[in-house]
């Protein structure tokens, strides 16, 4: 076995994972805070106001990263679920079930900031626009996953159920996205989009990318924390957890 595979294998063992993530967390947190400060300062103070939307555009520094993360977390959840089902990897199962609430929060944040932005810019809190609608449905998919996990008492079974549901959802996301997009072409004539290709000035783009990275790290941190809790909870009768509690 090559060293990388060996290490991945080792990470699958709960005590090792617990110790390793414990060491990793402070570093990740510091890095995450730095990125957040940098991104927020760059986005809210340094970046110039937009030529069209002036200062209101600054909400993208929260809105866009959370929208990206909402999808990223879902894909992570489904892929981890598939790995858990196919190869019976316990850690993957745990990644799958612990990701759902985090993804739901990102989705909710994206919807909330989007609607706060929508009111001054579009003139409405909510439009049944393709992106908004599919984001809303994504939120419901997350809720379904969370409700199912909570409802099944045997957590090992629950993890499998959640993985199946997440995979079904993954197949459905493009279909849902495509259908709402198609549905709301009613709303937006292509005549209006006589604009140049999406572009962004570097002074605005860099803080956005920094924020995206900060969000990504934030996800990793919360995921690790939740995984640790879940692990200790599941293995509360095992020796290593007992050693942990009473050294």
């Amino acid at each position, binding site marked *: 076995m090559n060293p990388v595979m060996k290490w991945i294998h080792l990470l699958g063992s709960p005590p090792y994972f617990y110790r390793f993530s414990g060491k990793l967390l402070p570093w990740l947190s510091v890095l995450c805070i730095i990125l957040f400060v940098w991104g927020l300062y760059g986005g809210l103070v340094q970046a110039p106001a937009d030529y069209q939307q002036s200062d209101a555009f600054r909400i993208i520094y929260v809105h866009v990263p959370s929208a990206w993360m909402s999808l990223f977390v879902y894909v992570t959840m489904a892929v981890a679920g598939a790995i858990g*089902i196919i190869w019976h990897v316990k850690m993957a199962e745990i990644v799958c079930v612990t990701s759902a609430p985090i993804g739901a929060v990102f989705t909710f944040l994206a919807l909330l900031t989007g609607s706060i932005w929508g009111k001054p810019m579009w003139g409405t809190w909510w439009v049944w626009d393709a992106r908004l609608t599919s984001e809303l*449905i994504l939120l*419901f*998919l997350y*809720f*379904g996953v969370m*409700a*199912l996990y909570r*409802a*099944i008492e045997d957590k090992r*079974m629950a993890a*499998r*159920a959640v993985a*199946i*549901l997440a*995979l*079904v*959802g993954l*197949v*459905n996301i493009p*279909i*849902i996205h*495509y*259908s*709402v997009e*198609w*549905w709301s072409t009613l709303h937006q004539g292509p005549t209006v989009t006589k604009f140049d290709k999406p572009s962004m000035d570097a002074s605005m783009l860099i803080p956005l990318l920094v924020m995206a990275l900060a969000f990504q790290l934030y996800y990793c941190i919360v995921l690790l924390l939740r995984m640790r809790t879940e692990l200790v909870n599941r293995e509360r009768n095992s020796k290593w957890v007992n050693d942990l509690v009473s050294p």
Partner: protein
Amino acid sequence: MNHSLTQAFWTLLRRDLLLTYRNRAQAINPLLFFVLVIVLFPFGVGPDATLLKAMAPGVIWVAALLSALLSLESIFRSDFDDGFLEQLVLSPHSLSALVLAKVFAHWMISGFPLLVVAPLLGVFLGMQGESIEVLVITLLIGTPVLSLIGAIGVALTVGLRQGGVILALLVFPLYIPVLIFATNAVQMAESGFSVTAQLSILAALFLLSLALAPLPAAAALKMSLS
């Protein structure tokens, strides 16, 4: 073995239909529910004929979704309660194929009757000739998708006590594409447009769910039993 799989398929289908026949009084409830939901709308929004006509496709389809949800549990619930599901899972045949038999039976019991009453309700809401035809076609292609996707949801929740509410949370988001294309087809037909595109997409959704939905449903059933 091929022959015996077909035999198992028909045995199961026949059994579910026979059981429904013996319990006809209960089987008719989702249909009554469907009619009742639609009849409630004129009371709710007032007897404005143009408004009702504009709402008709959406109202009929949402009612179809609700009545499908109401009847979904019957796909696996009683078999789970009396242990027949174990026999099904342990049969030598492909569980996905057997699940398909049960889903087919469910559609014949709960989806097909909607096709019969929907034209009457369409007329009742002020729809006319061609759009009623399109409505029936969308129900014909769309309701099997409801049963197929629903089977996954029921298989996931059949072992739970408060499964019903969670079932709604699981399946409704997945029903949205069907709802969109079906109602849009009827609306377009009402305005006199061609509806080939919508019907094609509905057919694609039907074939896709026919091919794929039995797999997660079977996996979920095995999970629910363990």
